[in-house]
C-alpha cells in the first residue's frame, strides 16, 4: 500500500496535494469536493486588506454619488442594513469550512499595513483556522526604496504576526528577493513554520490595437515549476521550516518532483481551474501508480531525495551547471 500521507506545518495531511488559494476555494461545495478528491488540506482565498479598504472607499463613493443634489432625489439608494465591508464574511467562511471539512483549513492573508496584518491574523486564528499563510505581495515601485528596506519590512511583518499567533504560520514568498536563501533563513529564524515557494505576480500586457494596458489573470505554466524546484532543493535541509511549492504544478510527475526536491506539499490552482476538481484525484492515483511501479513506499521516503543536500553541493542546482550548459559541457 502506497503511503501518500505527509505533514505540513505540524499538521497531519492525508496527501501532499493542497489546492492553493484561488477562486475555486471560495465555495464550500468546492472545498467538499476537493476533500473528497483527496486534497491534503485547503488554502482558502486570501483576505486582502487592500480589498477591504478599496471596497469600503468605493462603496462610500458610490453611495455618495448623486446625493443631496436635487430636490426630488436626495438619495439614490435605500440604506441597507449592512455591507460586509470588514473581515466578518471571511471569518465566517473559515468557520463554515472548519465545520464541514475534516482536512486542515489554512487561511490566507494578504495585507499591507503592519497593524492590520496582526489584527486580521488574530481574527483568523479565533475563527478556527488550522494555520495561516501570509502572502507577502509587494511590487516595490518606489525607485528610492532599497532592497534591504523591502526585506526588513517583510521580516517585520512576519515577526509581528508570529508574536501574536498561536497556530502554525506559513509565509508565501516572492522569487524576486536578491538573496532568496538568506531571506528564507531569516524568515525561518523568525519562527515561521513553513515557506511557500513562490508567489506569482500578475503581470500586465499591452493591447496593441487599443493601446491599453491589459491586466488579466493568467494561469501558471508547467515551466514555472523549475524555479520552485531549484529553490526547494537548495533550501531543503538548511532551514527548519517546512517547504511547499506552488506554481506550475500540473502533472503527477510534478508532485513527485516537488517531494523529491524536498517539499512537504505541492500546491496547485491553475491545473484545477483548467481541468476541474477531479484532476486532483487522478493525480493522486497516478502518483501512487508511479510509486508502485518504481518501488517507493511513501512520499516520506522520497522527500528531499533530489535536494542539493542529498545529491551534493556541486550537482545540478548551482551556477557551475549553468556554465556547463552554455559551454556545451556534456556533464
Amino acid at each position, binding site marked *: 500500500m502506497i503511503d501518500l500521507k505527509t505533514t505540513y506545518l505540524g499538521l497531519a495531511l492525508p496527501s501532499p496535494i493542497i489546492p492553493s488559494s484561488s477562486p475555486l476555494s471560495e465555495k464550500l461545495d468546492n472545498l467538499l469536493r476537493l476533500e473528497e478528491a483527496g486534497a491534503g488540506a485547503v488554502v482558502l482565498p486570501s483576505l486582502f486588506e487592500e480589498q*477591504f*479598504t478599496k*471596497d*469600503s*472607499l468605493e*462603496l*462610500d*463613493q*458610490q*453611495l*455618495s*454619488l*448623486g*446625493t*443631496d*443634489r*436635487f*430636490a*426630488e*432625489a*436626495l*438619495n*439614490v*439608494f*435605500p*440604506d*441597507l*442594513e*449592512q*455591507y*460586509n*465591508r*470588514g473581515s466578518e*464574511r471571511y471569518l465566517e467562511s473559515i468557520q463554515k469550512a472548519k465545520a464541514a471539512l475534516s482536512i486542515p483549513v489554512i487561511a490566507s492573508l494578504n495585507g499591507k499595513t503592519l497593524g492590520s496584518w496582526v489584527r486580521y491574523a488574530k481574527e483568523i486564528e479565533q475563527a478556527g483556522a488550522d494555520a495561516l499563510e501570509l502572502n507577502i505581495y509587494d511590487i516595490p515601485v518606489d525607485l528610492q526604496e532599497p532592497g534591504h528596506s523591502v526585506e526588513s519590512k517583510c521580516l517585520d511583518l512576519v515577526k509581528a504576526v508570529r508574536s501574536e499567533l498561536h497556530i502554525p504560520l506559513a509565509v508565501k514568498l516572492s522569487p524576486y528577493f536578491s538573496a532568496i536563501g538568506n531571506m528564507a533563513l531569516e524568515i525561518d529564524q523568525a519562527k515561521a513554520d513553513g515557506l511557500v515557494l513562490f508567489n506569482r505576480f500578475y503581470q500586465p500586457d499591452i493591447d496593441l490595437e487599443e*493601446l*491599453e494596458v491589459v491586466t488579466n489573470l493568467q494561469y501558471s505554466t508547467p515551466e514555472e515549476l523549475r524555479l520552485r524546484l531549484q529553490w526547494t532543493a537548495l533550501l531543503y535541509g538548511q532551514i527548519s521550516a517546512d517547504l511547499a511549492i506552488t506554481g506550475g504544478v500540473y502533472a503527477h510527475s510534478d508532485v513527485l518532483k516537488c517531494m523529491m526536491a524536498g517539499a512537504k506539499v505541492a500546491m496547485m490552482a491553475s491545473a484545477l481551474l483548467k481541468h476541474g476538481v477531479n484532476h486532483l484525484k487522478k493525480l493522486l492515483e497516478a502518483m501512487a501508480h508511479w510509486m508502485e511501479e518504481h518501488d517507493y513506499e511513501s512520499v516520506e521516503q522520497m522527500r528531499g531525495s533530489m535536494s542539493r543536500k542529498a545529491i551534493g553541493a556541486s550537482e545540478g542546482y548551482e551556477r557551475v551547471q549553468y556554465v556547463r550548459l552554455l559551454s556545451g559541457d556534456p556533464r
Partner: protein
Amino acid sequence: MVRPILMIDGNEAAAYAAYQLNEVIAIYPITPSSPMGELSDQWSAQRKPNLWGTIPQVVELQSEAGAAGALHGALQAGALATTFTASQGLLLMIPNMFKMAGELTSTVIHVAARTVATHALSIYGDHSDVMATRTTGFALLSSNSPQEAMDLAVIAQDSTLRSRVPFLHFFDGFRTSHEEARVEQVTAEELRAIIDDRFIDEHRSRALSPDHPFIRGTAQNPDVFFQAREACNTFYLDCPGIVRDAMERFAQVTGRSYHLFDYVGAPDAERVIVMMGSGAQAAEETVHQLLAGGEKLGLLMVRLFRPFSVRDFIAALPATTRKIAVLDRTKEPGSIGDPLYLDVLSAIAEATEDGQVPFPARPRIIGGRYGLSSKEFTPAMVKAVFDELAKEQPKNHFTIGIQEDVTHSSLPYDPSFSTEDPRTLRCLFYGLGSDGTVSANKNSIKIIGLETENYAQGFYFYDSKKAGTVTVSHLRFGPKPIHSTYQINRANFIACHQFFFLEQFDFLRNAEEGATFLLNSPFGPEEVWDRLPRQVQRSILDKKLKFYVIDGYRVAKDSGMGNRINTIMQTCFFAISGVLPVDLAIEKIKESIRKTYGKRGEAVVKMNFEAVDHALAHLHQVTAPSEANSSFAIRRPVPLEAPAFVQNTLAPIIALAGDSVPTSAMPVDGTFPSATSQWERRNIALEIPVWDPAICIQCGKCSIVCPHSTIRGKVYDSALLEGAPAAFQSAPARWKEFPGASFSIQVAPEDCTGCGLCVQNCPAKNKKEAGLRAINLRPQPPLRAQEVENWAFFLSLPEADRSKLKLNQVRDVMLLRPLFEFSGACAGCGETPYVKLLSQFFGDRAIIGNATGCSSIYGGNLPTTPWAKNAEGHGPAWSNSLFEDAAEFALGMRLAIDKQADFARDLLLRLTPFLGEQLVDSLLQAEQSSQEGMRLQRERVAALKLALASLECAEAQQLIAIADTLVKKSVWALGGDGWAYDIGYGGLDHVLASGRNVNALVLDTEVYSNTGGQMSKSTPRGAVARFAANGKDTRKKDLAMMAISYGTVYVARIALGADDGQTIKAFLEAEAFEGPSLIIAYSHCINQGLDLIHGLDQQKKAVSSGYWPLLRYNPELLKLGRNPFLLDSKPPTLPLAEYIYNETRYSMLKASEPERAEKLLALAEEDVASRWALYQNLAAMPVRPNPESPPE
C-alpha cells in the same frame, strides 16, 4: 415618561406613525411625498414590526391611480392600509377617494401637499392638490410642523377608525415634509393607549369575506341614489366631535394639545388671521411679537378643514373679533374666493343667521392668497396682512409675497421687518450638489438638536439643475422653540463651500452685521482678499464680518476624501460657531461619522476621522484690509447682448433673485421662448476638452456622445479662417464632398460640464504618448477667455450643406447643428445624447410631447430652455403635459397636424382657381422624404402664403393659419422608463396600436431617475432600487417584444455607447416609418450607481454581455419579403457579472446579501440566455407576409 427625541423631517414623522398603525402600504413615488413610502419600504425590508408586531407589506404600484385601487382593495378586504402622495398623484386617487368615502372606509392618506401643475409644473408646496379633494368626502386634517405631522397622523388614524370617515392628513411639501426639527416621538405604549383595537375589529368585520358574503359597490338608479347618498350624514355630523375627542385623548397621553381650531393671540383681539399649514407657524411667531407691542390681534389655525365644524370655528374666535383675513395657499381662478375664505365667509354668515355668533357686529372678512409653490411666507408678510386689516377699507382678494402688478392685488410689505429671536443662531451654507455640504449640515443639526439643549431646525434648498446644483442649507438653533417656517435672510453665520460662487451670487446680502463668514478657498489668508469680487469685499468691510478661510479641497485630497468636504467644513463650522466646545464637537462629529459610515467599512471611518483632525490646522482667520480694492465685480447673470426677456425675466432667476420678478414680467400662459440656455453660461466645468487637430481622425465620436451639445464640429470654407482668433484651431477637412475645406472641433467653454465622455469616446490615441487622445481635458479657468472668443467665431461659421451629408454616418451627424443644447442634465448624462440626436436629425420639424421626468426637467425647468432654433428660426416645439400621458399627448398633436393638413389640402383645392394649378399641384404632390424635399416644400408654403395674402376670402385666411402643416412634421413622445413601462404604459400601448405616425423615444435608465431611483418594471432582476431594497426579484419587462407583437410598429432597442451606427439607423428608420415607432434607448444614469465617466463603457458591456441585445423590427421589410426582425448585436461574450457589478445597484446587494445576489445573478444569466435564444430564433425565422402590414 421619557420620550425619544428625534431630529427628523415631516415626512419621516408622518411615515413613522403611518407605519406603526398600518399593515398594507400601497404607494407610487411622487415628490415631495416619496420619502414616506421609501422609509416604509426600508423599514419593512429591515423587518421592523408595526404596533401589533407584524411587518407591514409595502407595495409600489404603476401609478397613483393603481396605488389608490390597491389601497381601496386592501381596505375592503379588512386591512389597515394607507398611502402617501401629493399633487397630480393625489388627483389620480380622487375617483377611488370618492368610493372609499362613500363606503365609509377607515383609512388615512398622508399628503405632502404640492402644487398641481397648471401653466407650469412645480414640485414645491401649496394646497392646490388638497383643495381639489374637498368634494370626495374625505376629512381633511392639517399639520403645520414635523412634530404635528407625527401627532396629527396618529390623531387622524384614531379618528378614522372611530368615525369611519376616511382622512386625508396633509402638511406642506418641502417646508414641512423636508424640514428637520426636534420631534418628540409618540411611543408604542402611547399609541397602544390611544388606538382602541375594538375599532380595528369593527373595521375588519366590515370587510368583504366569502365567509360572511355581501356585496358593496352596486350601481344605483335615480330612484334611490340620492337617498342613499344622504344616508351617511350622521357620520359626517359626528366626525368633528370624534376628532375633538381624539385630540383630547392624545393630549392626555402625550401632553401635546390640539383643537379643531387653535387660536393664539390676544383674548380681546380685533384683527384675526385664519389659515392652515406651515405658514401658520410664521404667523404665530409674528403674532407673539406684535402682541408684545400691545396690539389686539390673533391667529386661528385650522386643523380640521373637513368636515368643517361651524360651531367649533365660531367658538375658537375671540368675541371681540372685528376683522378677519383668511389666507389661502391655493388659487381657484374664477371663484368668488379661494376655498378657506369661502368656508369662513359661509361659516360666519350661517352662524350669524342662526344667531350663534358672539360678535357685537358681523366681522369684516377679506381673503388673500400666499405661498403658492412654496413661495416664501414671512413675518413681514403677516404683519402686512394685519396692517391691511387695520385699514378702514382693507383690500379683499389680495396676494401677499409677490409683486402682482397686473391687477394690483398684492399688498406691499416691509422686508426688513423681522421676528427672528436674537438668541437663535442662524446659519446659511452655500454648497454644490453632492459636495457634502447638505449631508454635513444635516449631520450638524442632528448633533445640535440631540446633543445640546438647543432647539434646532434644518431646511435645504436646491436649484433645479442636475449638474452644478446650488444648494443652500438653512440652519437655526437656540434655546427657544423655533417656529420660523421661512428661509433665513439675516444670518449670523454664512459659509460658502465653493469658491466660484463668489463671482456668481451676492450671498453676503443675507449677512447680519458682525456675522461670521467661512469660505472654502484655494487661496490662503494672505492671498484671498485680492481674489474677492468688489461686492464681497465691501460686504465684509461694511458689515464687519469675521472672515475665515480653509482650503477644504486640499484637506480632503490629503485625507483621501477626494472632493468631499463635508466633515472638514462641518468641523470648521463647529470650531468657529462655538455652539459646542471644540473638543466635544469633534467627539460628537466622530461619533456621528462612525454611526453614519461605520457599516461602509473602517477605512471610510478612518478617512473621515483624518479629515476632521486635519481641518482645524488649515482654518485661518483673515484680517481684511481697510478698503475694498478689487478690480472685478460679481459676474452679470447673462451677457448684455441677451434679449430683453432674458435680461428682465430670466436673469434674476439665474442670480437666485427670482422672487423679485413681478407678475407683469411673466408670460400669462406658461409660454417661453426657445433657445435661452445659450445665455446662462454657467462655467461649472473644472476641466474642458482641448482638441489636438494633429491626432484627430474627424470621426465625430466625441460630439455624438456629448450630453450638453458643447463639443461640435464644422466643415467650412478655408477662406473663412482669415478672420479667426489667433488660438482658433483647424485642420484640412477629410470630406471628399467638401474639397479644400477646413474642419474644426470647438468646445463651448462656459457651457461644458467637464464630464469627459467625449474624451472617453475618442478613438484616436497619441502615438507618442498613448495616455493622450485627440481631445484631452485641461483646466478651464486659464482657457476660458481664449475659448470664449474661439466659440463665438465657431458659431459665426456657416453650417454645412445638409444635402451633401450622409446622415447615416457618425462623422456627418457631427455637422448637424444640435437644437437641444446646454441643458441642466447631469454631467455625463446618458439620456441627453439621444435627445440631441433627435434634435439634430428632425429638430427643424419636430413637435414633442414630453412625459414628466428627468427629460422634462432638464428640458423645461426654468430659468432657461435648452430647446433651440436653427438659423432659419426652425426648431423643436416642445411641451410637457403629465407624467402618464406623453404618448396620448403626442398622438393628439399628430391628429391635429394631420387634420389641419387635410383641411389645408382641401382649401388648396378650393382655392386652385386663384392660386394656379402649378402651385397647388406642387404643394399637393410634394416629395418630402428627404431634407431637400422638405426645404423645397417650405419654399412653396412661403410662396403660398404670399399668394394668399392678396386674397380677401375667408378660406385664404384659414389656409394661411394652417399652411405650415403642409410641410412634414415629426411627432415625438419622449420620456423615461417610469413613463413608458409603468404609469404611461397603457397610453403608450394604445398609441402604438393606433397605427398613427407617432414616434416614441424611451430613455431607459431602468429606474425613476428624476424622483430618486424607485423601481420600475424596467428595473432588471437583481438590481437594488427604492422598493426593491433586497434586489428586484422579477425580470425586466421586454417592452420591445410587446410592441413587436403588433407587427405594425417599428421598434428598436439601441445603445449609443455600444453601437452609434445602429443608433443612427434606428432614429432615421423610425422617423421615416409611416406609422408608430418605438425606440428604447439604453441610458446610463447616476441612479444606477455608476460614475458616469464610465457610462459608455458600461453600455458596451451591457451589449456584449447579452443584457441589452440591440435589435430593430422594421415592418417595412416585410414588404420587401425580408424578415423584419434584425438582431444587431453579436452573441454574448462577456459574463453578465462583469457588466452588472460595475454598478452600485448590483454590487451593494452582493456586499449586503451575497447569497441572494448570487441567486439573482444566476436567474439573470438565465434571463439573458433565454432571451438571446428567442431573439436568435426570431431573427432566423422565415418570412411570412403580415396581412396587417402597412399598405403600400
